[in-house]
């Protein structure tokens, strides 16, 4: 539809017996749009500013990660897992390594498990920080994102000391981790968390009590618990709707069998609850990190695995609680060095499917508020 071409005569013709009829407008939002969190494309049908219908179009960031995994040796695949959910690479690595370990029937030593817990929770903090910060950018506040990225930077520096790379850490190995900590790393973590807790108080002071923020998010994008379960939502999306489900507790894996997690649940089911759950999870992750640092056992950091890793013939599904929800790896091996199939169950992909349902009836401004609250990563949606 063109805005400009209608003459007055055309406009008048449209006035029927019911009075003035407005025309629906088709708005193509994305793939290049500041607040679709990557290259999500939404075809919105608008009536005025109200969304009548929405069709998400995905696939602009498809890199064939699952296919690449089939063409790499099992150990080599870990590095490609980094790029699936690029905001929480370490958690992806944990899921992949865990799946292979489960198929091979080996278990990482306790120290490696605790290191995985510690780094995984730090990764969760980093991912939630990005989620919270960019969400506020969507709502029009520019300061929080810079604060959260500053804090995330600290975590990335710690990862750099750990694995040599800030972003795609490539730190996990099947049966353990790559290195032990460099000297003084845990102390640096302590210092970082002390500072970070202060920063979090400051950040929450800026956002949480803000009336504009509350009025933008409360009651917007409501999901009730049965609907959340029916759509297969997981992670903060599900817990914000009042469903107490966290794989770290309900299906504990690795060190979570020893370290209890307080699952953060909110009952409201709206965007505010989803924001709040993420902030509470950051606090909970800080606590878990401190527990892991206190209880960090000694010993080796990896089991001995052959250089050419050949998982036995068979299939397995291993899921962890990633920062966005249940991140599962369905791993089929034909006994060779290469996985026969490695399928990812990406939480972002599953959580995205409720979007058209949520947007219907909301205003144009709420579209970005709702997309932001889903916390999708297009790298994982499209893989």
């Amino acid at each position, binding site marked *: 539809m*063109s*805005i*400009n071409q209608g003459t007055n005569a055309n406009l008048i013709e449209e006035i029927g017996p019911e009075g003035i009829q407005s025309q629906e*407008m088709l*708005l193509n939002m994305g793939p290049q*749009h*500041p*607040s679709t969190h990557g290259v999500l494309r939404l075809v919105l049908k608008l009536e005025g*500013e109200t969304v009548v219908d929405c069709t998400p179009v995905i696939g602009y960031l498809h890199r064939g990660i699952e296919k690449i995994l089939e063409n790499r040796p099992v150990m080599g695949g870990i590095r490609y897992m980094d790029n699936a959910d690029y905001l929480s690479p370490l958690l992806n690595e944990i899921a992949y390594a865990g799946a292979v370990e*489960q198929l091979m029937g080996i278990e990482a030593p306790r120290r490696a498990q605790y290191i995985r817990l510690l780094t995984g929770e730090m990764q969760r903090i980093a991912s939630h920080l990005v989620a919270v910060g960019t969400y*506020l*950018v*969507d*709502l*029009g*506040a*520019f*300061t929080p994102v*810079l*604060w959260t990225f*500053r804090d995330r930077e600290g975590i990335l520096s710690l990862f750099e000391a750990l694995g040599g790379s800030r972003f795609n850490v490539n730190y996990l190995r099947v049966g353990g981790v790559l290195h032990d900590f460099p000297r003084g790393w845990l102390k640096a973590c302590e210092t970082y968390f002390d500072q970070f807790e202060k920063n979090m108080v400051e950040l929450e002071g*800026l956002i949480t009590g*803000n*009336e*504009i*923020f*509350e*009025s*933008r998010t*409360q*009651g*917007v994008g*409501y999901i*009730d*618990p*049965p*609907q959340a*379960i*029916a759509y297969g939502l997981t992670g903060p999306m599900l817990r914000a709707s009042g*469903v107490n*489900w966290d794989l770290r507790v309900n*299906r*504990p*894996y690795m060190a979570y069998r020893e370290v209890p997690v307080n699952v953060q649940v909110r009952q409201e089911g709206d965007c505010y609850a989803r924001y709040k759950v993420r902030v509470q999870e950051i606090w909970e992750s800080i606590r878990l990190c401190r527990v892991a640092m206190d209880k960090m056992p000694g010993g080796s950091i990896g089991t001995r695995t052959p250089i050419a890793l050949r998982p036995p013939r068979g299939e*397995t*599904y*291993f*899921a962890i609680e990633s920062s966005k929800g249940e991140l*599962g790896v369905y791993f089929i091996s034909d006994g060779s060095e290469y996985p026969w199939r490695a399928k990812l169950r990406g939480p972002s992909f599953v959580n995205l499917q409720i979007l058209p*349902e949520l947007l*219907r*009836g*909301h*205003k*144009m*401004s*709420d*579209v*970005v508020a709702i997309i932001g609250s889903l916390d999708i990563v297009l790298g994982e949606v499209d893989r």
Partner: protein
Amino acid sequence: MYFSIVLGDDIWSQLGGYIFSWQFLQFLVAFVSFFGFVMTSALLLILAERKVMGWMQDRLGPIHTGPQGLLQTVADAVKLLLKEDVHAAKSDKALFIFAPSVFLAPIIAAFAVIPLSPYVGLPGITIATGIVYYVAMSSIDVIGVIMAGWGSNNKYSLMGGLRSAAQMISYELPLVLALVVVVMLTSALAGTAGYPGNAGIGTIAISQIQEFQSVNIWPFKGVPFFDFVFEGFTPWAWFVLVQPLMLVIYYTCGLAETNRAPFDLPEAESELVAGYLTEYSGLRWAIFFLGEYGNMTIVAAITTYLFLGGWSGPGVVYLLGLGSPGWGLLGNLLAVAYFISKVYLLCFVFIWIRSTLPRLRADQLMQFAWLILIPLTLFNILLTGIIFLVINSLGLGSWTSFVFLVVTAIFNWAMLFVFIRIVGRTTLSTTRRAQAPAIRAQPKAITALPAPERTGIAGGQ
């Protein structure tokens, strides 16, 4: 033909006489300095915004261009001047091209009624209807914005333009109503002890409103030092103390008028890409940007004159009163300095607010204007009038104006605190009520499924 023959000589001689007259030279100097002030102030504000926001956001801001990044905006301006002027193929050319000028011209024109100091100002400062002129000028910008939104032939631009139209027109009302109360104050005070004017006749000239904010009472009157400081500078008579709520409301509406955060919906970058600016680039974009910052300056300037005593500051009136040109010049410079620092202080608050608050939604914005601000300002006008009538009928003699000011101030401060306490809750509750249909429209529970039970290796661990 006849016209030019008869009047030809006269017109040319008049025009020639005018162009080579002292008045014209004075006008030219004043105009150039004003234009310079608007432009420089925009440049400074852009730099200040980037620096201050950088400071608030724990980063450095521009540091590489020039010493401490001071030349960054100059470099930006040069870049924008040299950029290609891109037109969309199917845009409405005339509207697209003229929109920036229509946006900028009234903003610069509005400066005509604002004096910088007792003597520095365009001839427009003598206009007796300064506030009306300002209000008229400030409501013309919206046409430029709509032209830009419509002419771009872009859906985002159109939505931005229409949002902007609704917003600017809605916020024009409480803005004017907030100014009305100040005019009421002047007419209540005029002619009474220590105030200029004839009894009952207020003023809407900006420089005269400022005179109502200086009284003849200050501590240690007669001691030269205190005379020097307080003559013409009496912060206890500023209207901000009498009508603080109106200052807050005027300033809030000013935020909405200038499309600044948290009311920057027309150009909401996260929703509408850049709103009505989406298709603009290069110099035309720069003109819009300039206009926005000019608008910021003018809102701050009007606030300064109406509520914060304008250019008044320690020493100005005293130095002017000495009568010698040298001291007079110094006094004027001091006045300019006071005025500009007050304006920039208010602009700093603009920047502070921008880096703190998220953006409102379009319907919340409208609710805030129509359900909260307009009733409140109307009520305040009524209240001020009633207080005036009651106090006037008490027969307090020369104390009338003082008692009136004090009672009005008490009521207004109380209203300000109540306003601040309840405004958040009111906004929230009206929003919730508005959102209830959307929530109810959500499909009801499909069937209450039990939490999925998993089998297999992952579950068995």
